């Protein structure tokens, strides 16, 4: 018995969410009196992989062949299943990123495992192995008891603090056999804005809605986001009108986010919007209408015109940063 994490990387660097998964797996392993291991797939240096030792991972398997450099969910699921078998891992932990969510169900079928997607709690230690996840688009929680012997948990980014539990670790090359038919999909191109904070993983999100009147007014939103190291987001009508790309649309039919801080500017707070943001830890609303429904779902608010308040907020943050550098 052991706990295995899939340590996801982006361009050779382990993602922050992989360290969250490691910290989570260490807690689960401690509960089960066993060890936590990792599998990495892709072009990642051993030195980078050794960082996982700091979060309690004892052994790291790495698959770094050219064939595996691009993400193909079918092939990656085969590799992780082989790793789980060779390490006798009956619990696999990964992060509920776009790639994590695309491969975990395939892994669940391979391992005949129970699978909880988007977990927000550790499993209970009562034999039922119950894990909490969000349901009904943020309007409820579901507690899922994982009865199968093998278990797979995809944890929500930003739901678990990274915790240090340093110990020595070894990195070993792993050479599983993967069948040719696992590679029917071919990645032709990866288009990624280089210096942008990724929305699902962001700790702070600055989001704006139709109250901003038009795409030409997003300069101040981006400036505020840059200052805070935040990702930018928007409401659905804004992306429908092509003021902003669809990849920024949050809510029931867009991306669900759970940052530490969500700042909503000129957004009314419709139930479908709230569905994607209500699990944010702290919500700030800036809206000129004191009756806007979003104020009922917020921790802090400013009633005022965005074109007046946001520039002032930018100045206030600059001042704050100057004194707290």
């Amino acid at each position: 018995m052991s706990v295995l994490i899939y340590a996801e990387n982006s361009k050779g660097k382990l993602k922050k969410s992989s360290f969250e998964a490691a910290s989570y797996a260490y807690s689960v392993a401690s509960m089960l009196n066993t060890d936590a291991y990792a599998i990495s797939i892709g072009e990642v240096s051993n030195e980078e992989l050794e960082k996982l030792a700091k979060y309690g991972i004892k052994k790291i398997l790495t698959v770094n062949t050219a064939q595996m450099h691009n993400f193909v969910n079918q092939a990656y699921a085969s590799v992780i299943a082989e790793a789980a078998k060779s390490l006798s891992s009956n619990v696999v932990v990964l992060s509920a990123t776009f790639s994590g969510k695309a491969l975990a169900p395939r892994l669940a079928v391979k391992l005949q495992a129970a699978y909880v997607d988007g977990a927000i709690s550790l499993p209970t230690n009562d034999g039922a192995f119950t894990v909490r996840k969000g349901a009904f688009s943020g309007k409820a929680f579901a507690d899922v008891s994982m009865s199968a012997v093998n278990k797979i948990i995809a944890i929500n980014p930003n739901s678990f603090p990274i915790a240090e539990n340093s110990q020595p670790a070894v990195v070993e090359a792993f050479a599983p056999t993967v069948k040719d038919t696992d590679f029917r999909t071919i990645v032709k191109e990866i288009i990624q804005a280089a210096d942008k904070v990724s929305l699902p993983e962001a700790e702070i999100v600055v989001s704006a809605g139709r109250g901003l009147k038009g795409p030409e007014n997003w300069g101040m939103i981006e400036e505020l986001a840059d200052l805070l190291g935040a990702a930018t987001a928007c409401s659905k009508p804004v992306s429908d009108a092509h003021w902003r790309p669809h990849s920024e649309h949050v809510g029931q039919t867009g991306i669900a986010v759970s940052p530490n801080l969500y700042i909503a500017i000129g957004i009314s707070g419709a139930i479908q919007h709230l569905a994607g943001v209500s699990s944010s830890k702290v919500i700030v609303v800036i809206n000129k209408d004191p009756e806007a429904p979003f104020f009922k779902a917020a921790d802090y608010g400013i009633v005022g015109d965005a074109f007046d308040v946001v520039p002032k907020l930018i100045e206030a943050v600059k001042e704050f940063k100057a004194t707290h550098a």
Partner: protein
Amino acid sequence: MKVLVCISNVPDTTTKINFNDDKTSFNTTGVQFIINPYDEIALTRALELTEAQGGTVTVINIGDPSTDATIRKALAIGATDAVRINAIPRDAYFVATQIAGYAKDQGFDLILTGRESIDYNGAQVASLLGEMMDLPSISIVKSLQIEGGTATLEREIEGGKEVISCPLPLIASASEGMAEPRIPNMRGIMSARTKPLTVVEPVEVPNLQNIIKFEKPEGRGQVKLVSADEVNKLVDLLHSEAKTI
């Protein structure tokens, strides 16, 4: 081209969520059910593709007879025919096993699902089906083109997108951007009444997990308002009280 679109029957997006006293079941009293919004996007793209290249679009739902209204709506939007597997959908694994069982010898070129159902939010069915049927599966697809038996897809990734090429048959889960959902017209609604809806009995599926309890999140306290003339105060609160900056 033969396309299968998986449609889920979900509470309308404005629904207030309530559970029965047992805390394990959703209270459907007064709830309006709709086609899962992403499944509507998938269905529309399937219709666009078959209208341009010829073919049929079958919709499939795992549900009890109460979901027939939602299935008829899919037929009204333009699906050729429909299949309902007569069971209460226990979880995504159950749903995918039923769909794989039905689809395995039907020769579909393309199977589409939504990126996730807005009730269970699992984002599971497409990948589960892919593994069960040993087919490629591509999740959270924003664009799908098909030419000469090969699909070109754009998949969402953190901070961008990936362009993927894949031979048919394949499974994809549809996201915003793949198509603009269609609204059924009068003729569609009339013809939907007579289109075939086949009811199939379910197969047995092992039980790997159970939802033992639903709970509603606690509301936030009263909002703390800061005057627009004292924006500095907000920054201070976010630093010293909320500890988020």
